[in-house]
């Protein structure tokens, strides 16, 4: 598959009065067409902010993209201004995002049909009738019964799961090339979450889209993602195919994260401590304080760049890179 998005050195900062928070720190990754990429990490690790940065949706101020490039479909997204025409024509058309809380992304005072058709009219310049027809078609594709009738309904008339389906339909209206699901199913009940994930998976396969799944749920990633980026303290600390990472986690954090999930009959191994503050970080490895494999050199060396060890499998752990004879 051809390369769809190449992110290089993306760095996003937030200005606070305590200091500058580097929420995303020198993040580089890529995604190919038709691929499912999982981005996992804990809250505050920068997984959402990195995606919002690509969409140029980071609140500014206090947020600011300070460095990096993101080549999408041959153009650098980060060159465009937040409110530029070019960016608006990409957002929602070639690249769509689904958020955790659909109620905040939908206008409560406008019916679904109008909100959906507006997307089509602005991006594709269709007529109102055409837009309505396509919206209804999309709604039925995401499994909403009586789609034509429900176009007249307002967001509060849908249940949580149904609202998220509407969000998926809306994101899919212009058949984007890249779909970003930012914790899209986290707030839902288990069985509803399973429905939606399966729906998302079907749609992505049907239209051969690339999907970026931002989540803290390792199970979701294990089930659906082809490749995984593990993020910690604003950096990608490990990347590789899902199977590689589970079979042989290189970074101690990844290893800890996988063993953090309770398994029957096994003693649970928790990662001790908590994530570091992101203000005035020393250049050393951010996981250092919690790491059970740390060595004396770790306290002196700056954190390693994400370096491939074996094919696509790359890590940013100095110790592991040395063991593998790469660094």
């Amino acid at each position, binding site marked *: 598959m051809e390369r769809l998005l190449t992110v290089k050195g993306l760095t996003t900062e937030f200005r606070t009065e*305590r200091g500058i928070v580097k929420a995303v720190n020198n993040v580089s990754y890529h995604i190919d067409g038709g691929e499912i990429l999982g981005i996992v990490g804990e809250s505050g690790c920068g997984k959402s902010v990195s995606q919002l940065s690509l969409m140029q949706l980071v609140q500014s101020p206090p947020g600011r993209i300070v460095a990096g490039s993101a080549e999408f479909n041959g153009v650098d997204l980060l060159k465009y201004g937040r409110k530029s025409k070019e960016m608006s024509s990409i957002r929602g058309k070639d690249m769509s995002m689904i958020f955790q809380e659909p109620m905040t992304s939908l206008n409560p005072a406008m019916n679904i049909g109008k909100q959906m058709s507006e997307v089509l009219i602005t991006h594709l310049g269709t007529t109102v009738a055409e837009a309505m027809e396509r919206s209804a078609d999309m709604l039925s594709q995401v499994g909403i019964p009586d789609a034509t009738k429900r176009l007249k309904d307002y967001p509060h008339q849908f249940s949580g799961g149904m609202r998220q389906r509407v969000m998926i339909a809306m994101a899919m209206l212009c058949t984007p090339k890249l779909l970003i699901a930012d914790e899209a199913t986290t707030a839902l009940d288990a069985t509803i979450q399973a429905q939606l994930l399966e729906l998302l998976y079907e749609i992505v396969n049907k239209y051969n889209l690339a999907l970026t799944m931002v989540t803290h749920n390792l199970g979701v990633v294990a089930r659906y993602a082809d490749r995984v980026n593990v993020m910690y303290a604003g950096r990608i600390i490990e990347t590789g195919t899902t199977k590689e990472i589970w079979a042989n986690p290189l970074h101690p954090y990844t290893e800890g994260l996988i063993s953090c999930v309770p398994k029957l009959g096994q003693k649970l*191994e*928790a990662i*001790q401590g908590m994530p570091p503050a992101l203000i005035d970080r020393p250049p050393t490895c951010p996981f250092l304080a919690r790491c059970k494999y740390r060595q*004396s050199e770790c*306290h002196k060396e700056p954190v390693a760049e994400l370096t491939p060890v074996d094919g696509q499998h790359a890590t940013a752990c100095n110790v592991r890179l040395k063991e593998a004879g790469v660094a």
Partner: protein
Amino acid sequence: MSTKITNDPNNADNKGPGIGEPFGEQSFEVLTEAPLPPVNEFVRFMKVFCRRKVVVFGLFLVLIVLVAAIFPNQLAPHDPLTINLLRTLEPPSADFLLGTDDLGRCTLSRIIHGSGLAMQVGVATVLVSSVIGTVLGLIAGFGGKFLEELIMRFTDAWISIPGMILIMLMAVILGRGVFGLVLAVALGGFPGYIRLVYGQVMTVKQNDYIMASISMGDSKMRIMFKHILPNCISPMIVTMTMGLGGGVMAEAGLSFIGLGLAPPTPAWGGMTDAGRAHLATLPWLSLAPGMAIVILVFGFNMVGDGIRDALDPKMRGTNN
């Protein structure tokens, strides 16, 4: 692995358990999580409070009036009660900075002496009405269905009577002393505090920590005073500060329509009223005490605004 690393002074990050200690096995390590840096609440409060210049200006105005109220005899150039019939209705001059009234009394001195009364009435009315309001509000919010209905319906009825009419009625009944005046204004204002406290109790009651206290077997009284009341304080302080201006206004209003303190006590409202007859020819007679009212009320409101911002729970725990 050596223990040398743990003692490495350059290692600011090393707050986790020491090397070689088993992780997870004996899970009682102290300090598995690094404490967040402490936040000085007072410093943060002052920082937010002082951020807006108009708030600081308001505080400055209030302080000026406060100084005048505390040291009227030192600050006033003349005696506020001395009648000098030879020098009546004089325009502002070097001798009388704000002129004299129709009995030849120094307007500036009378304003300075009136500031104490304005302050007292403002503070006293707020204290009286907030105490009554808090007690009734707490009872309504925590004393069972019957008391809740009784107090809240009474409050609704009380609020439906136009405030000024109520205050006037009270003033007539209670007489023209400071005590009567304060009580009249306080009785006009206390239902507002009932509603505020009641609403706050209702919100705080919803919190899990109240349920946790009940599940621990805490008594109602203890929950009310240990958990609910402390969490009602911030909005109370804001409303009280804002209410100070209202108290001053109400007092001025009463004095203006002749229901305030009996003359010759210098009261700002009464002075504004006295100057009304000469408004076309000698406007400063009314304008000067009027401005004094404006300054104090504006000051109180700005301070209240600043306190509200500084106590905003969304700001708590941050240093910005």
